């Protein structure tokens, strides 16, 4: 349909509106993408600040800085803000910016809905963050909000938390519908499904996961709402309810959710590694099938988060086998990335550094995931710092490094300027060292027997906690450098060529840098 737009529109190119209304009313995928990215970075800093409070309290045994009730609010809000405020919106921002440009579309398929799905997010997080200032404090039951701690025993602000989750869910579902509609309908002629860049493929699959599980999350928080305010007993054993039901429903959402946070990063890394290896991606088709397999398997492994709740032996065995099976397609992806680098002509600019670190450290997180899948061993690992180490290894150098790699890779296209390579490499190395210093010792702490979500600990855990806190402070402070690098790049710098990376492939590099406000009003030719 975009093929009929006449060239007249391009001649009298209308740019963005002026002032605040540009951002409030915009339906432009690039503006909305930028807003998502800025919002997510703001949430990243806020959630990170909470992590700093947590690590400061855990610097030494004893209670020094915060009381246990506030500590629990910090762990809860840190998790919620990072998952729903930082990682997910960052990938939606990248999708907004890049998907139309990668498939040769003029914009997202549903631009007004795009505007609304963004503006719901600040509203949701304003509600969520305001709970910190309510009587009784913010949610304090962990980001997994297990009932009945979050229902019968929850603080009065829980109802606001539920409302915020509902709004975030609406926003995510609309974002996902938009991505699917765009990819299925607006591809340039000749851009067949199996020619799509992997970032587009992984986002297509992620969007289906979102549509499948966000309603489940909405369902579980609605049941909580009923239990708290309308006298039902879904999760209250005293009223004939079932606290374990909560965990089944939550993790039916929660496990696909963790792939929602990592699949787009897989896609981005699959763009970046070939670009800096100057060699095509190894095993494109198997990459697509592997992502599909991971997505399907993610629906049948949820109870591996619940090995100790007392599910029957047959259930334990099924979920152990299914979970281990995920290692196969995940392994295929890692092998493909390594095979792409093998006998390439590698150079290590910031995007590549983050992408290579992604592969190495995500694999380490995958290994600890495999260990956790062994159900008998999980009885020792479960709810210890080993789990904390595991999911931070897949989320920080996984999702977050994937986002940093994407940001550096596409910043020249977005801003028209090259970022400062020296500063970016400093950002990488400080992040890399800080992150490993913060999270690697957590494996040792977990294996030595330190449970998660405690504000104070026995003395044998003191040393590694101190190391971990030092690493966390280092990682946290380093992220201010990223802010500086991006601002500097937006304001000026060396002019970026249309294709600043020698080995980069894809339609986005056929456009000038910075990308004009409207692109591909006439669809490109795909050979």
């Amino acid at each position, binding site marked *: 349909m975009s093929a009929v737009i006449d060239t007249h529109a391009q001649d009298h190119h209308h740019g963005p509106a002026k002032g605040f209304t540009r951002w409030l009313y915009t339906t432009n995928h690039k503006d909305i993408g930028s807003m998502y990215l800025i919002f997510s970075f703001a949430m990243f800093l806020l959630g990170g600040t909470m992590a700093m409070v947590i690590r400061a309290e855990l610097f030494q045994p004893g209670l020094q800085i915060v009381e246990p009730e506030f500590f629990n609010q910090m762990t809860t809000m840190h998790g919620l803000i990072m998952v729903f405020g930082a990682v997910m919106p960052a990938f939606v921002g990248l999708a907004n910016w890049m998907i139309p440009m990668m498939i040769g579309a003029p914009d997202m398929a549903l631009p007004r809905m795009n505007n609304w799905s963004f503006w719901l997010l600040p509203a949701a997080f304003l509600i969520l963050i305001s709970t910190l200032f309510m009587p009784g404090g913010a949610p304090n039951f962990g980001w997994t909000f297990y009932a009945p701690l979050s229902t019968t025993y929850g603080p009065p602000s829980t109802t606001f938390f539920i409302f915020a989750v509902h709004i975030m869910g609406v926003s995510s579902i609309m974002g996902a519908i938009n991505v699917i509609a765009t990819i299925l309908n607006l591809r340039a002629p000749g851009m067949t499904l199996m020619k799509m860049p992997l970032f587009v493929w992984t986002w297509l699959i992620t969007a289906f996961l979102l549509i499948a599980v966000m309603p489940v999350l909405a369902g579980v928080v609605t049941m909580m709402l009923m239990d708290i305010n309308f006298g039902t007993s879904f999760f209250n054993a005293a009223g004939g309810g079932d606290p374990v039901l909560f965990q089944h429903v939550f993790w039916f959402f929660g496990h696909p959710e963790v792939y929602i946070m990592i699949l787009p990063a897989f896609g981005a890394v699959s763009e970046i590694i070939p670009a800096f290896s100057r060699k095509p991606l190894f095993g494109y088709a198997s990459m697509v099938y592997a992502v599909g397999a991971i997505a399907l398997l993610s629906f049948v492994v949820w109870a591996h988060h619940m090995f100790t709740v007392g599910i029957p032996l047959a259930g*334990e065995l099924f979920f152990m086998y299914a979970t281990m099976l995920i290692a196969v397609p995940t392994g295929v992806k890692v092998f493909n990335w390594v095979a792409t680098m*093998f006998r390439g002509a590698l150079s290590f600019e910031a995007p590549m550094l983050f992408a290579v670190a992604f592969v190495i450290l995500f694999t380490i997180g995958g290994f600890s995931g495999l260990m956790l899948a062994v159900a008998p061993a999980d009885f020792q690992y479960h709810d210890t710092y080993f789990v904390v180490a595991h999911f931070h290894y897949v989320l920080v150098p996984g999702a977050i490094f994937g986002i940093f790699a994407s940001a550096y890779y596409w910043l020249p296209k977005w801003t028209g300027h090259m970022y400062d390579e020296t500063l970016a490499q400093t950002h990488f190395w400080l992040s890399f060292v800080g992150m490993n210093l913060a999270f690697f010792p957590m494996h040792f702490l977990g294996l030595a027997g330190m449970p998660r979500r405690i504000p104070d600990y026995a003395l044998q855990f003191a040393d590694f906690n101190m190391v971990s806190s030092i690493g966390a402070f280092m990682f946290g402070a380093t992220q201010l450098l990223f802010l500086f690098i991006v601002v500097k790049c937006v304001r000026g710098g060396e002019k970026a060529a249309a294709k600043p990376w020698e080995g980069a492939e894809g339609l986005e590099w056929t456009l000038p840098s910075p990308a004009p406000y409207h692109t591909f009003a006439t669809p490109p030719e795909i050979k």
Partner: protein
Amino acid sequence: MRVHAKRAGALLGASLVSSQAMADWTLNMAPGVTGTSNEIYGLHMTILWICVAIGIVVFGVMFWSIFAHRKSKGSKPAHFHENTVVEILWTIIPFVILVLMCIPATATLMDMYDSEESDIDIKVTGYQWKWKYDYINEEFGYFSNTTTPQDEIYNRVEKNEHYLREVDNPMVVPVDKKIRFLVTANDVIHSWWVPAFGVKKDAIPGFINETWTRIDEPGIYRGQCTELCGRLHGFMPVVVKAVPQDEYDAWVAEQVASAERERELTSKDWTLAELMERGEGVYNTNCAACHQANGEGMPPTFPALKGSRIAIEDMNAHLDVVVNGVSGSPMQAFGEQLSEADLAAVITYERNAWGNDTGEMVTPKEVFDYKNKE
């Protein structure tokens, strides 16, 4: 990697944590004192070494590429981008490794789930924030509360060796006997964990989970609650004392006798002063975590008792709240948790402490009548 971690750790340790004499640099899971925990340790080490081996191969190829195939070294990129044989191989080989791994894991799991034919049954109940151990066959039970002083937690005095992992009444069990645990909870979900046994089971209200252990060596084994259960989740230790059979038998006899003495307290005549004295102890163990030692609570979740209507007006309302709890709130029903003497003492205490000064008392007999009237 291990050596590096140790070396880096030692450096940091020397410069920063010289004051923490008790701390150590444990890197790995420790084998325990039960068959289960040793099997788990074996599985853990097997899967760890499999991961290390795969890691060496994958990262080996990767680092070779990083060093040898650099553009700056004049490497010319190859153009291959698929190889069906290789792709099938690296799908099948990991699959086979996983199947092999599942065999011992399945065997261990089946063993862990076999809690039939036990010698001793102990019901473990999680409360916010303490454990109760009921010896079902011997008909006695007791609470196990943390004994770590607030002064140590708030760094006013030096912390002792078993900081946060010490209790007033540990669970006592015999060695070389199959002990079955029936695990449940009274309020929110807790999780009972003793690492040395390889036993961790969630304590869930409305459910009774089964697990078991057989301890090889006498000793004191320490763990703690591992499921976030509210404010004092980090202050809910598990301590188990494993003793030889004859020592265990003597301990059981003493517990049975002491339970009998406790029951006799109900019929004894009490004075206000005696009840106040006993009540203060009961209050500090059971109530102060929420309502605070000074009775001021933490409104709005945990209301103040000092000057509250319930504590200074109608006695029956006060009895009702303490005995039956308040449905839909964190206030538990203490009727089954505490003896009549303790209930009477704590209610009397609450009505006369912190300037409540009603001068009223309730006797254990009256509490007994109240409970049975219902």
